[in-house]
């Protein structure tokens, strides 16, 4: 049985890809920030996203709070968690070889998932809030995805403005370019590290809140987002923050197109092959990043 692929289907797939991609970009921006500023690969990024999703779930479940409004809680909460994590653990491995920082973050990741299992059980939860789609001509836009995409784009834009236009953003970029020189210029590097980890965790939390409405919430939901975020920052170029946006949209498109032309199950394999190819052929990413 062959499925005829019509232009409408391709259009639909591209739309879905871009909608998903904006969300990936926002989540990956957090991972990219930590990697750019501290050279630490934060494998606990996905579990932080999971905590964001649970925050939204509980606020919705217990207080009936609008899931999108819970961004105002989940982001500051996880910002704080990120700062604590950085202050207590991560700052000790910033200059260590990658084996140390990666393993440490794995330890954190395993512990967070287990804590979530203990605290929230492994039951699959969901936030029943927004279902159905907007219909526009031949295309359907899932409501929750459109709204998630809009929020993701807005938050990503906000992060870019912060990075580009404010003194704080300038300091973050300076530390990411050269820690020593930044220090000599009077920037408090430890403080920038704290803020970076906090901001990155807040971005993960925003991702968690936005996906909470769309996918099943359970303690192990975060791991896929860690891997996807790695893909995004490699595609976009590690240390190149606008590259994360491009990488995110690209990953969304690739996933959707490969599910259309091959099958949904091999998405990850296709994305992985692409990751290795990009690492080999353009190790600085599609936009020029830092080697």
């Amino acid at each position, binding site marked *: 049985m062959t499925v005829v692929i019509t232009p409408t289907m391709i259009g639909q797939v591209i739309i879905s890809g871009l909608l998903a991609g904006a969300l990936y970009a926002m989540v990956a921006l957090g991972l990219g920030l930590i990697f750019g500023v501290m050279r630490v690969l934060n494998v606990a990024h996905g579990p932080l996203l999971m905590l964001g999703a649970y925050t939204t779930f509980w606020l919705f479940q217990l207080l009936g709070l609008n899931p999108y409004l819970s961004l105002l809680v989940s982001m500051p909460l996880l910002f704080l968690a990120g700062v604590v994590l950085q202050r207590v653990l991560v700052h*000790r491995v910033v200059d*260590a070889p990658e*084996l140390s920082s*990666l393993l440490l973050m794995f330890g954190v990741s*395993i512990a967070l998932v*287990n804590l979530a299992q*203990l605290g929230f059980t492994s039951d699959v939860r969901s936030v029943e809030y927004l279902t159905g789609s907007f219909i526009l001509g031949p295309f359907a836009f899932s409501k929750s995805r459109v709204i998630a995409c809009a929020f993701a784009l807005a938050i990503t834009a906000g992060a870019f403005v912060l990075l580009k236009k404010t003194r704080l953003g300038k300091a973050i970029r300076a530390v990411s370019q050269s820690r020593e020189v930044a220090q000599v210029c009077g920037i408090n590097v430890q403080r920038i590290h704290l803020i970076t980890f906090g901001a990155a965790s807040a971005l993960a939390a925003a991702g968690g809140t936005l996906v909470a409405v769309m996918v099943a919430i359970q303690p192990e939901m975060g791991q896929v987002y860690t891997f996807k975020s790695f893909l995004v920052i490699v595609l976009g170029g590690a240390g190149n923050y606008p590259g994360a946006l491009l990488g995110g949209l690209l990953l969304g498109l690739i996933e959707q197109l490969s599910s259309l032309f091959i099958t949904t199950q091999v*998405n990850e*394999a296709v994305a992985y092959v692409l990751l290795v190819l990009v*690492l080999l052929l353009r190790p600085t990413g599609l936009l020029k990043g830092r080697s």
Partner: protein
Amino acid sequence: MARWLPAGLLVLLVLLALYPMHGTGYGIRTMLQLFMWIALAQSWNLISGLTGYVSFGHVAFFGMGAYTAGILIGTLGWPWLLACLAGGVMAMVLALVIGWPCLRLKGPYFAIAMLGLNEVLRVIVSYYEGLTGGGNGLSLPTLHASVPIYYAMGLVALSVTALTYVIVTSRFGLRLMTIREDEVAAEAMGIDTFRYKLYAFLLSAVGPGIVGGLAARDQGYIEPTSVFPLITTITMIVMALFGGKGTIWGPVLGAVLLFTFQELVWARFIYLHQLLFGAIIITVVLLMPRGILGVLQQKYNLPRTI
């Protein structure tokens, strides 16, 4: 002490070889798992401890061996020993396919590339249902062979350790360690770094491949999530790190200590098991990144070949 060490080891080996005659079924299977972890930690040590290239996807070779052996035994009716050896060969083939591109990557990028590997293999194995049984897994014909598998597993653990000894005391090992200390300098001295990294990578894949096959035979049932868990990679790394990476006996020591700890303590705290493991990882990384033997080596000026 140096004179007593070989004699002590010999006695230990004889005792271990005689153990199945007196041991209970449970005891034999516990020891067999310990051998498995020694072989895994030691194999990881071969590439990552010696060259400094951190492989975060080593469980991929384990899973590859498990599925190769599973399919050969279950579908084609091969004898299990042969099928497990084939598992080792296929793991090497996988290492060649992955290592050829990925070993050119440096530092964190190699780690990222390896991190995705087990995830992808799990997806592929789930997808090709006709061959692998997909998500339903693969059942092997019943066979009570704990004792032969005990010896086979022990032999693999012993061989990988012996191989490490041979490598560390050879010029090949020196070249690998030069790469670890300074790859640019190694290249400047005329070492074909890529070739030696690839050799080390291939050698580090055989053990997990065979062990994966043996574990599949021992358990009699495999499924994608049970043979490709990231946690297996993390466990072997933590064992090697705890004992002392880059040393000969470190991974063995780490495997014995952590495995014993696991059997004695974790089994009693089923719900806290992962949390404790996370805490152990963090403690080892922060407090003793050089491992037990690494610290002893530094303090007492012990030889490199320990």
